[in-house]
């Protein structure tokens, strides 16, 4: 009696386990579940195989010169203005030279660089550590053009990507950002609490044939183009000027270059 009851319970337990596991196994077998999300490209979409940016710091005369590009980004991407610095969301922002390039700190810095602020943003690395860290592929590098993107709907908010990013380019929604957005741009999604976000090189604008918002508002400070095209404006700027990249020694291969 005791024995048969035990056997019954065993069989029942194993069956229950089998039933519970079947949706999981289904998900594994579904191939499309593994694909990264796609963004539909418009007819006039700008095309490149490796988008990159060159920042001409010689054209920056004071930190105020950076305000228009930062404001443009904040506005179209519905970036909230939060009360506490701890919870800040930043896609492109201003940093002093020794914060943007801490490994190049010197007591005798060029006077011009000493007095201006530099714009910093996601570097859209060639080998991004954040994408390696992400356990759900919610952040991924678009193979077609090298843009490092975010799927806000897949992100579980583990913040492994934030620990992995050596540029502090990622922000986390510590609370619902919506009440802190001055004017909502209905053409771009707002985010919810608990997900990570960052600059996407305006992938949504590139798909419509427009340059990134910061580039448009930058007054020539930011140059944007295809790093694989030797006739592009970025390649011309790189040919004619000496440039540096942030934390180049880490091997992440940033796609953002600075003319200093």
């Amino acid at each position: 009696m005791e024995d048969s009851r035990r056997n019954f319970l065993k069989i029942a337990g194993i069956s229950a386990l089998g039933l519970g596991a079947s949706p999981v196994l289904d998900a594994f077998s579904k191939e499309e579940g593994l694909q990264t999300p796609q963004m539909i490209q418009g007819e006039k979409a700008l095309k490149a195989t490796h988008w990159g940016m060159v920042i001409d710091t010689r054209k920056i005369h004071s930190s105020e010169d950076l305000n228009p590009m930062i404001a443009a980004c904040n506005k179209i991407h519905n970036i909230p203005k939060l009360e506490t610095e701890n919870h800040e969301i930043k896609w492109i922002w201003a940093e002093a030279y020794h914060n943007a390039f801490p490994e190049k700190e010197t007591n005798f810095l060029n006077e011009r660089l000493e007095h201006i602020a530099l714009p910093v943003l996601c570097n859209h690395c060639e080998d991004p550590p954040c994408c390696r860290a992400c356990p759900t592929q919610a952040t991924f590098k678009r193979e077609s053009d090298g843009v490092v993107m975010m799927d806000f709907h897949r992100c579980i908010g583990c913040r492994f990507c934030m620990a992995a990013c050596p540029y502090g380019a990622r922000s986390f929604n510590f609370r619902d950002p919506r009440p802190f957005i001055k004017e909502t741009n209905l053409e771009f999604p707002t985010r919810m609490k608990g997900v990570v976000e960052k600059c996407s090189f305006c992938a949504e604008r590139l798909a419509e044939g427009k340059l990134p918002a910061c580039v448009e508002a930058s007054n020539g400070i930011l140059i944007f183009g295809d790093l694989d095209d030797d006739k592009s404006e970025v390649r011309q700027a790189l040919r004619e000027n000496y440039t540096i990249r942030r934390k180049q020694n880490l091997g992440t291969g940033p796609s953002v270059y600075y003319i200093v």
Partner: protein
Amino acid sequence: MLELAIKGSKRYWGWMALLAAVVGVGFLVYLQQLSFGLGITGMSRDVSWGFYIANFTYLVGVAAGGVMVVLPYYLHDYKAFGKITILGEFLAVASLVMCLLLILVDLGQPMRMLNVIFYPSPRSVLFWDMIVLNGYLFLNIVVGWNVLEAERNGTSYPFWLKPFILLSIPWAISIHTVTAYLYSGLPGRGFWMTAILAPRFLSSAFAAGPALLILLCLVVRKLTRFDPGREQIQSLAKIVAYAICINVFFFLCEVFVAFYSNIPEHTAHIKYLFVGLEGKGALVPWMWTSMGLMAVGIILLVNPVTRRQEGVLAVACVAVFVGTWIDKGLGMISGGFVPSPLHHVNEYAPTIPEILITLGIYAMGALVLTALFKMAISVKEEVAG
């Protein structure tokens, strides 16, 4: 055997009710976190992991520490530990329950948790951490349960169990190694980017886990008719002694490499922790306390005269447990984020809600541990007659 966990004295139920109340408080605060977001914690854009992940890391160590009773018994046939392997395994189970809960409360979008399974990403260390932690939980439940059941029935455990037992030994090493790899493979985090991080984690785990086990053995002896045994406790004490010495040695290796090479990316974090940086040094007293406690632990444990006195041994174990907790729980995670990669010094301190949620999870672990130990000890008392 579960029925053994629901037959208990008033004292047993009182203790369980107390723990349940703490769990309840933690749960209510968690509901608040769920509705507001992780903004109720002290974490920030710069210090994006805090108390939850720190305690998670520490408890992975406690879980792995259980192997220090399993290995000598099953690999070296050290018979004395046969009596207490079950306590080590059940301690691992309770620790892993806490680990998984701490990960859960740290997620910004916990209801999307299963995305880790729906979109498996073998390049992410977190994916592997999920596998090793759940695997180790499974192994310890299966092994612990079957060995205990066999003991109750006066038979030896089923033959198919042996491979699981043997597998659980390297698996214990793997859980803490993979957890260390979460940190040590990140470019631009100089404090964690050291090949000795996994060995350091393991050495502190093999000190903290058995130290807690000794304390639990002493409590069990006091409260029940089951005596884990003097020899067993003394053997554990030697393990703690070696492990804590190795842990401090590894730390000194880190200090040498950082300061003799004098590379700022590596020294900055250690400076922040031990002397403060740019006028900020909230953790300085904590870190020195940790060093002091570990030193006290070493002195009391290495010296056979003090080690053999169980009262002094208990003090040493508390010192080791708290010392390694500060080192790993407070210093290791905050220390890695301060200064930030852009060299800003933004400090972190857990908030009250964050601490309450963590306490709730510790209470949950204690609840699971008490129930499992109650079961194991009832079987032992039953067998002894």
